[in-house]
């Protein structure tokens, strides 16, 4: 499809970006463009203005702080996150999700924040960050605010961002001792594919029992879905095989997937059970280590 004419802006500060968005109400932000340009080229998205965030200084930082936790800036690349030594050490599931996104070329262009802001129900980086209680940092005409990631997704391609707002970073809290996380996704082709179904979990142990459990399921609804009833089954309990089995079944009941070119609804539902069992037992093992 013909790429329609558009003006390309490259602001150097967040304030400039916000001002530009206010001046050009139809404008869209672009990070790596690996989602946006495809929509413009193949899905008929016609834009008058594209505002690149890549020239904004300081947005590409990644920090892992002993007290404040993890912070990933808006232009930090998927490739950077996948290989960051501190993320690999303290937030291995975050690195794993980034590494499992797309292919090397796309990871060298695309960003974690772009993946979140694109708000695809299949986004590979969302479930883990959701399970860890991450927050997005938003700047806009009204100033700065933080919002739990859980409130950020409103539907396929729709976020809670207000006009002229920009996400500058995503923050994951410092993980409590005896915390384990896990994320598994399935797709028809082994190493490079878009997720047909995925589940992430975070478990915090107190003794042998789960003090806290958070489970998020992707590709099975308009946004990543939190499996609240499943969490309730595991919370306060030791994860025996029976509990894990029960949790898996419950999770399958908590989603209403659709069929699409990637998988049928029935298969997705079954796999939610399988993956929930697997992430729970992985996260549990990791939390016990």
């Amino acid at each position, binding site marked *: 499809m013909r790429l329609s004419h558009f003006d390309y802006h490259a602001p150097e500060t967040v304030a400039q970006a916000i001002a530009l968005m206010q001046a050009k109400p139809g404008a869209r932000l672009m990070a790596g463009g690996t989602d946006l340009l495809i929509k413009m080229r*193949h899905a008929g998205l016609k834009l008058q203005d594209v505002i690149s965030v890549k020239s904004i200084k300081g947005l590409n930082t990644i920090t892992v702080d002993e007290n404040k936790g993890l912070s990933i800036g808006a232009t930090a690349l998927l490739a950077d996150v996948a290989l960051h030594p501190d993320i690999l050490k303290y937030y291995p599931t975050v690195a794993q999700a980034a590494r499992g996104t797309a292919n090397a070329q796309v990871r060298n262009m695309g960003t974690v924040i772009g993946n979140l802001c694109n708000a695809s129900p299949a986004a590979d980086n969302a479930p883990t960050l959701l399970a860890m209680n991450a927050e997005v940092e938003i700047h806009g005409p009204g100033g700065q605010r933080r919002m739990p990631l859980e409130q950020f997704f409103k539907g396929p391609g729709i976020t809670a961002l207000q006009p002229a707002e920009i996400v500058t970073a995503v923050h994951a809290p410092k993980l409590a001792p005896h915390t384990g996380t896990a994320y598994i996704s399935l797709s028809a082709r082994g190493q490079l594919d878009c997720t047909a179904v995925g589940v992430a979990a975070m478990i915090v142990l107190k003794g042998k029992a789960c003090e806290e459990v958070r489970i998020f399921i992707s590709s099975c609804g308009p946004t990543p879905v939190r499996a609240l009833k499943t969490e309730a089954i595991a919370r306060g309990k030791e994860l025996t095989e029976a509990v894990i089995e029960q949790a898996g079944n419950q999770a399958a009941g908590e989603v209403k997937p659709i069929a699409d070119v990637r998988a049928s609804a029935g298969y997705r539902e079954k796999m939610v059970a399988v993956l929930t069992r697997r992430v729970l037992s992985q996260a549990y093992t990791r939390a016990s280590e």
Partner: protein
Amino acid sequence: MKDFSIVGQSVPRNDGRAKATGTAVYTDDIKLPGMLHGKILRSPFPHARILHIDTTRAAALPGVKCVIVGEDTPKIKYGNWRLFPDTQDEYPLAIDKVRFIGDEVAAVAAVDADTAEEALGLIKVDYEELPGVFDIDSSIKEGAPVLHDYCPSNISVNRKIHYGDIDKAFAESDYVREDIFTVHAVSPAYLEPCAAVAQCDLDGRITLWTSTQVPYIIQCLLASTMNMRENDIRVIKPFVGGGFGGKMELRTWEFCAAFIAKKTGRPVKFTLTREEEFLAGRRRHGMKLYSKVGFKKDGTLTGKDLKIYLDGGGYNAMGPTATFLCGTFGAMLYRYPNYRFLGQHVYTNKPPASAMRGFGAPQSLFATETQMNIAAEELGIDPIELRIKNAQVTGDKIPDVATISSCGFIEALQKAAEMSGWKEKRRSPKPGQGIGIGCYSFISGGVFNWFNTQYPFSAAEVRVFTDGTAHLLTMAADIGQGCDTVLKQILAEELGLKMEDIRITSADTAVTPQADLGAWGSRLTMMNGNAVVQAAKKIKAKLFGAVSAKQNLNVIHELDCKDGKVFPKGRPERGISFGDAVALVQKANRGEPIVERGYYTPRDKGLVTPAFSFGAQIAEVDVDPDTGFVKVKKFWTAHDCGTVINQMAVEGQLEGSIQMGLGYALSEQFVMQGGKTLNPNFLDYKMPNAMDVPPSEVAHIHTYEPEGPMGAKEAGEGLAIPTAPAIAAAVHHATGYRCKDLPITPEKILAGKRQ
């Protein structure tokens, strides 16, 4: 084994460096002064009548130079089966009717591609939608919508084969097995989308650069469709990024580029997008196969009754050949004393299926091999033993086909079993693991002259020079499979020169000798190789005569060419350099350069092929019992392609075949709804990539094919056949799920596995 110098080595490809460094010029890289860019308007409906087309707004768009519809053209149909004009059912642009989503309706040429694309949106076509048929069963039903008026049954080709007495054979069998198989369509998914550039000179002659497997066929069909003389059309094949059968016919953009170039006097380029390739490009036939086989208690095959319906899509394309061949392949690998085949090619309102690597064999042999595995289990015989019992051997005659002049099938079966540890793994598999086998035989080029060429099937011209070099000219099309390299090797071997001594000019119909039927059917090493050998032998005869005279040799001496020298075999020290020998001949002929031609047309070899390849492949899989995901751990392949001319090239063919077979078996498919392809991109069309391909081991079984050049036969397509049945058998071994409808998906495994 003969003693070769260059043949049998791993010789790096001729085109490797150019491709790796990005200097290779593909059709889309060609830019000519004043060149226009073309785009094609395609039908949004699977089946509709064209009532009216209004191109005025498109033609008025600034930058648009030409808009054409079917009515503007000479309205001559084309199709590769020239011998049977009835089968030629396609116009370059639709007349009256469209028959699949993506059928070509109009073409625009403009100063740039964006303008041409914008103009497409300004063409107004009034359609009357017609009911469509999207699968074989609905298409052959009484009263089904008819696609082509000439063919009210929607069955455009019927092919029968019958020998022996099949009913008697089944009556006398101890065990008879009947199954229905369905196999799906897949994309050739060559990495270079089709492209063509045409230029018309002031005398009205056309030059067409095009991404094709068949320059000669394009030349002829473009001439007939344009109502021109063949010699007024020159087709040049630049570097081509794969074809796999998808580029072996004249296509709309080739015609439109030439037609518009002639009309406007400006060069015109068309390049397809990946989406166009997936939506409307040629595919491998989906098929429905009814197969019945009989055995004696001891495993001896008594006969086979095979009926195949091919899902042809909207036009015949190469469907007639596929219909013929899937029947021949049904009884090629084993000895069937009695065989009956009925093949029917069925029109449906989908993109036309055509040739694709294996040309009917991957489908036909998926059924054969799966049924063989089922029978082995039910007869209580090891699948490899059952095969050995029925395997073809050298000297076997396939009725109505040919005598097999070389066959290493049994050795391949034994070798594959040995390499893979078959016996042990088969007896006691680890949980979730399984091992299975699939085999193949394939043709080394076809004999049946459906194109009705008036020329030899292959030709080569060799020129030799006093500086000790040679120039090989051939119409053979290297499309990435490496025939330029292999043909140079054959010439170098025959003349005793080095690779770097040989210049090659290939696939230019105005310059290279008439003719060559193209790169398909695994024919080039065999057929063009033979033409090269013949030309080289004529050169040698001249050189030997001259050297003999100069050295005053006794007539009993035999001469040879090796290491750049021409010498009597018994008196190597009396040899002279190749270049000096050429000079001698030239001197004796008052300076006339030495030019010789060689030709090959298979004769007295039946109507199918001059030679057969064979092979066996074993796959080991790991199946996740909860998700149904299949991971192929390893492949072992033992195959007989006669003399291996280039080890690296043959192994490259094997790697590529495994990648394709893996996709065919496990992940690739078109998701279709009402004739519409819903996954027209590589994100959702799941072609395996390099990281998905498991390790593999190969053994070349040594045979010498008397009909082939230096004993060689095919290695290009046969290897694409065994992978799917081998994986299916391994999955069955691991899970109990027997796949009779490809692809093997996790869902099917979960539903069908033993509890």
